[in-house]
């Protein structure tokens, strides 16, 4: 029997550069993950969600254009709707940044948070396969014996993680932004809604970078898949538990800093900083109709409240400031010497008091937000540093 049927031929080609080898690692790793049915389903559901978001933006676009099919149909069904749509159209011409930009920012802030969860699920599914499996099966030896260094290997794996999160998170959002603008009544929407895109890139991009480093670290913790998954879930649950601790309020002695052990809480602070939904909602409240109604802020307040933890913060501070004053009024330490001269003066005084309280609340909330933002940055940097340390330790030993 002829033992060697295929003669050996020497290869006389040109070697590819190092970036193409890193890309090969990323591509092959991602392809392996996408072969897992649950990851495939997750990616699919994210894109289905994106389709739903485009539909939502399309409906919004129809509401600010009186010549749109939806407006005409609604006008036939309920003529009063035409008035609202006409008003929105006028506002769009007068304040395009407010009518187009702010609602989009609110909606994209909501979408960005909504897609965080499927992304986390996909990460949980693939976490053991990032590095741990290569260590466990000693496939790492093959990588090290080829023309790639450990840094090339890590860059390739990081690239795969970024690509996966782009598929489940950033990609759908960018496509929604482009799709929503293409379906908008005017090309100027591309310009007026730029803030939504920039905020999305800032929050989602930053989160992807952080989660990439964190995933590399957690996947390096052990060579056993179950241990890696358990560590990941523990980090998540432990953080969630810590979120219930204390407050950022400097007036209240607490262990509020423990909240920053939760990467989800820290990323939520980045989200609030990038999108600032409370501020956006306040801006929309300036748009009042002739009857005093605020149609845009009424419709969009759900999206604002669903994504902003600042609302709770503001409520807490207001309660802390207002409740003692109410008690003072009910049980005054010194009796009032001069009764109010008339109703108008009393109303004016109440208004001034309310303004003073609001100013005090705003100052306290802004101080708390600043503390929270600093804590979140510090927490994220420390966690990323710890994860990088684990990777370094593991590969020093490998």
């Amino acid at each position, binding site marked *: 029997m002829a*033992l*060697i*049927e*295929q*003669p*050996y*031929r*020497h*290869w006389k*080609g040109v*070697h*590819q*550069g*190092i970036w*193409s*080898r890193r890309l*090969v*690692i990323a591509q*092959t790793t991602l392809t*392996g993950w996408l*072969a897992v049915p649950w990851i495939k389903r997750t990616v699919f559901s994210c894109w289905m969600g994106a389709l739903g978001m485009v539909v939502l933006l399309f409906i919004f676009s129809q509401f600010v254009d009186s010549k749109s099919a939806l407006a005409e149909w609604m006008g036939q069904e309920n003529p009063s709707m035409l008035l609202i749509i006409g008003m929105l159209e006028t506002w769009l011409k007068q304040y395009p940044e407010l009518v187009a930009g702010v609602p989009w920012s609110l909606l994209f802030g909501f979408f960005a948070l909504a897609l965080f969860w499927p992304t986390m699920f996909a990460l949980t599914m693939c976490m053991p396969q990032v590095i741990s*499996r*290569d260590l466990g*099966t*000693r*496939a*790492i*030896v*093959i*990588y*090290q*014996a*080829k*023309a*790639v*260094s450990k840094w*090339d290997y890590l860059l390739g794996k990081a690239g795969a993680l970024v690509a996966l999160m782009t598929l489940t998170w950033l990609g759908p959002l960018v496509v929604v932004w482009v799709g929503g603008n293409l379906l908008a009544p005017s090309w100027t929407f591309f310009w007026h809604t730029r803030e939504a895109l920039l905020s999305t890139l800032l929050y989602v991009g930053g989160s992807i970078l952080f989660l990439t480093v964190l995933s590399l670290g957690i996947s390096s913790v052990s060579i056993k898949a179950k241990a890696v998954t358990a560590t990941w879930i523990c980090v998540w649950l432990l953080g969630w538990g810590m979120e219930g601790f204390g407050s950022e309020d400097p007036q209240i002695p607490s262990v509020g800093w423990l909240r920053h052990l939760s990467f989800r809480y820290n990323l939520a602070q980045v989200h609030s900083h990038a999108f600032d939904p409370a501020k956006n909602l306040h801006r929309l409240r300036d748009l009042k109709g002739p009857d005093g109604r605020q149609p845009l802020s009424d419709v969009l307040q759900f999206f604002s409240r669903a994504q902003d933890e600042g609302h709770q913060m503001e409520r807490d501070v207001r309660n802390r400031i207002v409740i003692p004053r109410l008690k003072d009024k009910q049980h005054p330490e010194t009796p009032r010497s001069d009764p109010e001269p008339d109703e108008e003066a009393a109303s004016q005084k109440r208004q001034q008091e309310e303004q003073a309280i609001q100013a005090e609340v705003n100052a306290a909330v802004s101080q708390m937000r600043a503390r929270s933002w600093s804590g979140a940055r510090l927490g994220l940097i420390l966690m990323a540093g710890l994860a990088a340390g684990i990777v370094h330790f593991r590969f020093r030993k490998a």
Partner: protein
Amino acid sequence: MLQPVIHTQGVTKRYGTQRALDNVSVQVPPGAIGLLGPNGAGKTTFIKCLLQLQPFDTGQATLLGRDVAREGREIRKRVGYAPEQDCHIPGMLGCEYVTYCAQLSGLPFYDARQRAHEMLDFVGLGQERYRAVDTYSTGMKQRVKLAQAIVHDPEIVFLDEPTNGLDPAGREQILELVQSLWQRHGMTVVFSSHLLQDVDRICDQIMIIARGRLLVHDTLKNLKSRRVGVAEVVVLTGQESLRQLFAARGMPAEVLSNGHVRVEHGGADLTPVLGLLHEHNLRALEIIPSPNALEEVFLKAVTEGSAGSTGS
């Protein structure tokens, strides 16, 4: 002398207090190089240090003329390595795995895929290449490891115990393949094994490592010539009378359990043995010069090495 492919100077590697490599200095020209040593002698550590899979503590090493410590990635483009243990990527098909390894070495995708199929043919993996590597038998895994090691056409390939766990037929095939790499295709092969007969068969240079020290580096021919003066004579009948004839001529002899007559003739060649056979008109079926020479050299080197390290 040919430009050395491996050149080390005082390479030392420690694991805690234990020296896995102890001041190893060697210049190895191209060829089929057998790396011999008992288990735990430091063979794998030596290979890993040359490939920079493990950094060495002191000393200098060059591989294919490049500094190992500084140009590891460039060197590994031109070097192949088949590790002793399984190290495949779970879930990958055989052909995908070898293609991926070729791409990691810098081959463009289409070249990598073509080379992968050629190498899988070369190592004798047929339709099994379309199966996941984790489902392979031990023999198939050894073949796919060899395929991934040579898929990028390296100038030197390190094979760490490539015949471990193989049945006789599989071992024979792998040895023939490895032998052809140097003899027909000019690829330097470093063949690490503790199986002397495998090394004896395919290598022309021998390095013996024990307790982290390089005890011997020479050509197989030279090593065998050091142990001249022994032969085994194979005859059909009359082994005992032949032994007595040799003994009477002052050549100590014994009849081995396999029926061969082992004689210490003491000459540089077989002339004394042939002369005696001719005188008595005896016909031998076969005369094996220097049988087990490598084994004797190996045992002697390891024993002396152990004695030296104990004494020191």
